[in-house]
């Protein structure tokens, strides 16, 4: 059964019409149902040892991000130092999964993190809008990979997607994947601009069919960014995609996740939707900057019994 579906899937991208037929043939998302299920899973209470485990896992899943026009090599080095030792006063605190920067800052991050096992992710393809000619976007990716980035966060062409030119989006993702070489490709759907959950589901499948290793909700520059229901739809997509093809794809919600409580809600969602296989930094990431501080403060509260304050974590 799986084999026939898989062979079927290899055929869906052969033409624009076939791709459209496949994406529009995906079952529609029950909007109210998705929101209710996400809200219901968000009420789970995670306490004591489970909470400690969840906090450490969430720290290990963080893509510590700085994407500002004002970024400097010094700021990136400081961020890398924090990525290596999020809580310098506690050696048992794990490092984060990756540092995510603009392509010009990749070399600095690679140099600082060398040998640590922390990945260096770079946004590319004319992030955040993606509104540049394809050749420019591919050159952006190649420059980031050449500088040493081992994960590339690309943005899809939302203009093409929303006007129904799926094949164009597909080909662009495939071209970026080819330009990445051995680097992992995260495909940013920018769900805040896709308007409906049906579109999120279609874009997820499109990105996975085109070869994305991760699907990511948002750039963080558009509101709304990551939400629980959107992530639920994407988690269902990666689960179904693995069932159909055998290939596992990761999910990365990004933007707007600021508290440890929110992060734990996402972990519950992952466990209940995609399953335990995704509860690992290789398959689930948080794109965030201020989230890490709240995770550290919660960790401190759990280990000492006293509330921490923002004076005891770094500014960033």
């Amino acid at each position, binding site marked *: 059964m799986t084999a026939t579906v898989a062979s079927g899937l290899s055929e869906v991208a052969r033409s624009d019409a076939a791709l459209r037929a496949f994406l529009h043939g995906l079952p529609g998302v029950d909007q109210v149902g998705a929101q209710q299920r996400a809200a219901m899973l968000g009420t789970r209470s995670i306490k004591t040892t489970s909470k400690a485990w969840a906090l450490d896992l969430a720290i290990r899943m963080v893509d510590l991000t700085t994407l500002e026009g004002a970024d400097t090599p010094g700021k990136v080095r400081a961020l890398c130092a924090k990525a290596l030792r999020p809580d310098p006063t506690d050696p048992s605190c794990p490092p984060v999964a990756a540092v995510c920067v603009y392509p010009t800052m990749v070399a600095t991050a690679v140099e600082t993190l060398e040998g640590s096992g922390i990945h260096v992710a770079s946004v590319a393809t004319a992030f955040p809008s993606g509104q540049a000619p394809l050749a420019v976007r591919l050159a952006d990716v190649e420059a980031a990979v050449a500088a040493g980035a081992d994960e590339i966060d690309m943005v899809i062409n939302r203009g093409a997607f929303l006007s129904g030119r799926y094949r164009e989006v597909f080909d662009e993702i495939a071209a970026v994947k080819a330009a990445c070489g051995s680097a992992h490709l995260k495909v940013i759907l920018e769900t805040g601009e896709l308007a409906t959950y049906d579109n999120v589901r279609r874009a997820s499948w499109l990105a996975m069919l085109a070869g994305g290793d991760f699907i990511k909700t948002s750039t963080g520059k558009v509101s709304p960014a990551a939400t629980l229901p959107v992530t639920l739809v994407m988690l269902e997509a990666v689960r179904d995609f693995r069932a159909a093809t055998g290939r596992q794809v990761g999910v990365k919600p990004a933007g707007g996740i600021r508290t440890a409580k929110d992060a734990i809600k996402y972990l519950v969602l992952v466990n209940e939707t995609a399953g335990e296989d995704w509860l690992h930094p290789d398959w689930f990431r948080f794109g965030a900057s201020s989230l890490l501080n709240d995770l550290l403060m919660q960790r401190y509260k759990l280990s000492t*019994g*006293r*509330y*921490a*304050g*923002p*004076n*005891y974590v770094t500014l960033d």
Partner: protein
Amino acid sequence: MPTEQESPAATTEPTVRLAVRKTYKLFIGGAFPRSESGRSYPVHTATGDFMANAALASRKDARDAVRAARAAFGTWSAATAYNRGQILYRVAEMLEGRHAQFTAEVAAATGDRDAAAAEVDAAIDRWVWYAGWADKIAQVHGAANPVAGPYFNLSTPEPTGVVAVVAPPESPLLGLVSVVAPAIVSGNTAVVVASEDRPLPAVTLAEVLATSDLPDGVVNVLTGRVAEIAPWLASHMDVDAIDLTGVTDAGLAVDLETAAAENLKRVLRPAPASSDWAADPDVQRMLALIETKTVWHPKGI
């Protein structure tokens, strides 16, 4: 308005109106939430009659209140002293407008109506007295220090930060005002644990503060058990000072002071049981919650 002749009073039942009871809630960040824990506790009059249910704050309410107070500290401490004074005068005006309501609540709590009216008068006067200090502390308690070199050497009082306050239990309004006003006049923000048995005037004071241009979060009011909430405030690393005035249990006070030592909080020890809140205040409460910053500046170049 209907006249006697028009109303068929003789044939219909007298109008029965259901009273709209007030829900006494917490005051955190300018909003009036119920306790996160969903709990409440009954408040009784001096004679033991049921008066109302007040929210029973939990440690998480205390945490939220500290977060709100910290968020408010930047704007409030950076406001000019003149502006802070004006806002505090405005609070006094609003207190005056609610005089009757405060008198009724204080009277119900203490059982003495005449004394209650006098206490409300005194509380408003106390508030005005502290409001006047807003733009005077720096002149009176700052200094231009003579030093052995060509420098201006200036000491200025600055706010400490977030202050946790345990309000006196016996004096529900005057005692409360006497500990809250000196904390915020210099630019601190406060998390106040109201009198455990007489919390209603504190909630009404919160309503006054909410309508007096005081920025959200400058004063946060929690009602509930001191023994439950205060330890979390004393150990909280983001609280800079704790005023234990209203702690009546000596053992608890020692525990709180010990917990407060972890991040070197300023601690005001409990007031003696014989404290007379009607007595004229002095500046000690204000001075206890400020830090002196000294600046050296070259001169004569």
